[in-house]
């Protein structure tokens, strides 16, 4: 990844989300959720912690390897990221057409 690679989508927590981390689970409340607090556990919680800074999918996979010693399949990460994005929990930068 280079500084000029602006078309690769990069993901980061959305500023409008309220959240708390218990160490085991992360609770998140997205803007517009009608009082529905979402509980993230396992890989989703780890992903949330990681996305305090902007990362692309390959960077997320590499970070999982560094921090957890496991290499998740990139499609699993992509699904988890898509899920969090659909819930309004992540903002995306650099995606085509955005």
């Amino acid at each position, binding site marked *: 990844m280079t500084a000029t690679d602006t078309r690769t989508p990069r993901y980061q927590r959305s500023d*409008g989300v*309220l959240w*708390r981390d*218990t160490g085991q689970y992360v*609770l*998140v409340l997205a*803007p517009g959720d009608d009082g529905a*607090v979402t509980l993230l556990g396992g890989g989703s919680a780890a992903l949330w912690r990681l996305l305090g800074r902007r990362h692309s999918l390959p960077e997320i996979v590499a970070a999982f390897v560094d921090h957890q010693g496991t290499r998740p399949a990139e499609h699993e990460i992509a699904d988890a990221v898509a899920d969090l994005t659909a819930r309004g929990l992540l903002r995306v930068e650099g995606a085509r057409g955005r």
Partner: protein
Amino acid sequence: MTGAHPSGGDSTRLARTVAAYGLIGSLLDPPEVPLGEREFVRLHAAVRSQRMTGLLWAAITDDAFPVTTSQRDRALESHLQALAVALVLERLLVETVGAFEAAGIPVRALKGTASAHLDYPDPGMRTFGDIDLLVPSEAFDDAVASLTRAGNQRRFPQPRPGFDRRFSKGSSFRTPDGLEIDLHRTFAMGPFGARIPLRELWARSETYVLAGTPVHCLPVEERLLHATYHAVLGGTTPRLVPLRDVAQILLTQAVDVGRMHRLMSASRGDAVVARAIRLAWHELCLADVLALSAWSESYREDRQSAAELAVYGTGTSYAAKSFATVKAIPSLTHKARFAFALALPERSYLEERQEGRAQRIRRGLAQILSLRSGR
């Protein structure tokens, strides 16, 4: 972990141990093995009722408070519930602050959420059950109107129009979802609340960010002053979390001691601050000596302060607090307005209390006379 501590223990001491968890210098040691079931149930009930699930969970996850698997699960479940409430309350706070600012109403977040984000190492350690907002006296009626427009219901009417913006501690509101918003004008009812130089509270602020929104709150010395007032004057028996807040600020924040003394002096609240710090140090068994903790130990209440503090104690009435407040109100006109509003409140105020005017006047006079005669 599956073993359990066989012997009985002191649940009050255990609750204090949880309240002190993470504070440097506390001599309260957690148990060495998991509590028995009965003891844990008692402790867990106290932890939930005093909103200390975050402190218990922090102690458990740091392996400082041994628990069985089942105890851990229950501690986690109650903490998740408390955190979910905190998040929903913070969203309400962001919306309410946004509405106030759009209406040109200055506002400061108080207590729970501000303390959680600014004074604790992890905001999850400090949970809360309502939101507390401070507005200037002159904007109080506008703030009430803004909250009412947003669909919130005022819990108790004021005695007469203008009473709250001039004299009261504040007013409490219930949202359509059953959440609580406490709108404050000052830190406490009674004489200590009446003497706080309110304009000075607006001279400076600190800011934290919630959901991308900057939220203004009091600077650390004013937060400490408020924490001490809440700890000592907020109820007849000091609760553990307000005392923890006092200790947390003193032990982890760079409090300007000279500025703190000036604030106390301007508010004539030395007796409140000294009592709160002394209580915090004793209840949480803190060994470290700070300039303000040493001062609190050596401070001696004068007769007037002791009498005023007694007004907040067990068994004292609203009339007794009101009588003491009259003495603290500086202008004769305002003293008269205050007394008139309480002696002859509007019908809606009496209906809320199911009380007639004559009955109210008789009861108030009897309480004031008994207070003056020292009975």
